[in-house]
């Protein structure tokens, strides 16, 4: 697949994952919509174009679990039967990833600041103990960059030159109870990662071309960080950039409006050359 057809196909697949994601949330009457819509493009890119056999992905922002489930389902890593149980009693797919539930999700996360240390441990083992070429990607949220354990792990990864570790920050600028710049201002965030010895690049997290360029760059002896600037609720106008969509479930009308936004995006995508 050449690059332009890859990029076009990624846009189509991301729309399909958004549709699945919205259906899951609508049927379950579940919240955490905004965060999933902000990271779906990153997840679709990783599963379509980045992860190779043996690589590991750690979702450190555990509240993005449903978008990961939808992505895994889209790429055939989660069955129709399994995805139908999302949020229901007896499921392996609760709102935050469960321990020992799915091979594709090795770590139960949900308390922020846990995924990156685990990812760093995996990367250390792959690089120094197994001498394998396996890589690790870890998706964190910008709000998660408040936590000390994340920076402990960053220090560790830089010190040990874990060039097989890639951190992607879903930086949608919103966290639990406010804008990140008002709660605990992280800026200059890219410089912080660089100061921890990461090669850090800042991109539009919904621009597949930019994600592709940043994530395909060959490692250079230090871990990588892609600071992906995203929009919470991306793709559904009524949710975009609104804090409340961290929590709210959709009404029937809102679900219809959301699907209409996706249908419109799909029509535009179909007309692309």
């Amino acid at each position, binding site marked *: 697949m050449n690059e332009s057809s890859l990029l076009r196909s990624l846009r189509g697949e991301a729309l399909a994952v958004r549709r699945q994601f919205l259906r899951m949330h609508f049927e379950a009457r579940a919240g955490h919509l905004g965060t999933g819509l902000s990271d779906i493009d990153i997840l679709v890119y990783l599963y379509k174009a980045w992860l190779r056999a043996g690589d590991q992905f750690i979702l450190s922002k555990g509240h993005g679990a449903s978008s990961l489930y939808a992505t895994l389902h889209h790429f055939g890593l989660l069955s129709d039967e399994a995805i139908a149980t999302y949020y229901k009693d007896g499921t392996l797919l609760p709102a935050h990833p469960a321990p020992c539930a799915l091979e594709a999700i090795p770590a*139960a996360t949900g308390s922020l600041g846990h995924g990156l240390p*685990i990812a760093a441990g995996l990367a250390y083992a792959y690089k120094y103990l197994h001498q394998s070429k396996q890589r690790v990607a870890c998706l964190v949220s910008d709000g998660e960059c408040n936590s000390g354990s994340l920076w402990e792990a960053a220090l560790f990864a830089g010190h040990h030159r874990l060039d097989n570790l890639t951190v992607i920050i879903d930086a949608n600028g919103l966290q639990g109870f406010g804008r990140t710049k008002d709660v605990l201002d992280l800026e200059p965030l890219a410089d912080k990662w660089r100061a921890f010895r990461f090669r850090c690049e800042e991109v539009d997290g919904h621009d597949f071309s930019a994600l592709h360029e940043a994530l395909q760059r060959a490692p250079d002896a230090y871990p990588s960080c892609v600071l992906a600037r995203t929009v919470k609720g991306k793709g559904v106008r009524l949710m975009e950039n609104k804090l409340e969509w961290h929590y709210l479930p959709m009404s029937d009308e809102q679900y219809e409006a959301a699907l209409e936004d996706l249908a419109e995006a799909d029509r535009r995508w179909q007309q692309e050359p």
Partner: protein
Amino acid sequence: MRVDFVKAIEAVLAGDAKAMFVTGDLGYSALEGIASKYGRRFLNAGVAEQNMVGVAAGLALAGMRPWVYSIAPFATYRCLEQIRNDVCLHRLPVRIVGNGGGYTYGIMGATHHALEDLAVLRALPNMRLFFPCSNDHVAAAVRQIAELNGPSYLRLAISPYTTPLAPLSEQPQTLTRQYAARRDPRAPSVTIIGVGHGVQLALRALASGGLEHKNVDVFGVARFPWDFAVDATLVRSVIESGNVVTVEEHYADGGMGESLRAALPATRSFRSLAAAYFPEQRYGSPTFHLEQCGLTPDALVRAVLEVLH
């Protein structure tokens, strides 16, 4: 116990290529040999205990069996959520090792004591606790832990009352030892249960004659969860005496005495000698703190006499 631990862990590292040693920047004049011999299988994670335990979980997910070492309070409280979420929820073979259980660190001060480590860890799912009674039990505990596929905590400690008193009987499976047996099965008696190195205090009381001619059974327990099917002798003693005194260098709330009381058959009397928050807000050696909170051989003798009379 640290010397015995280092010796035992060297054997584990030598025999198991998946075993690793991770330290939170501790081990001066103890771990240099391991550090120089095991290359990347020795990892100093720095003064960053949360990351250290998360990294250990990642190592375990990659098939390694890491031993994670620090001073007991640092290896447990700071990183408790990592132990709970990353290790215990995933049933990973991460072996937490806390050096300096109880008041071992004495004059180093309150931040360095570990008086609620067993309480917080015993509540965690899939966690197994090991608290050897004496130096010569450390290797056995390490061997048992090395066989586990799940999480564990090893509490290393030193008692100022350490007494080289040979046990009457040993139960290698549970690490329980009996040090003294009642002389008169019909006379009133007391079952003394020392938790980990807390038993040393009871042994001192035995050795110094304070418990001589007292009708007591003395046991040391070293592993949790309890396995009373194996430790049938202990249970029989408790049923027959109907009187229990437990001794532990740990707070009473959430401690092993409390757990034993809930798990053992009901008794006429059940007393727990345990640590206490600094009664006079003064600080000192392990002996000073043990005396401050009534964890002494004499206090044990008094407790036994009170029960018997």
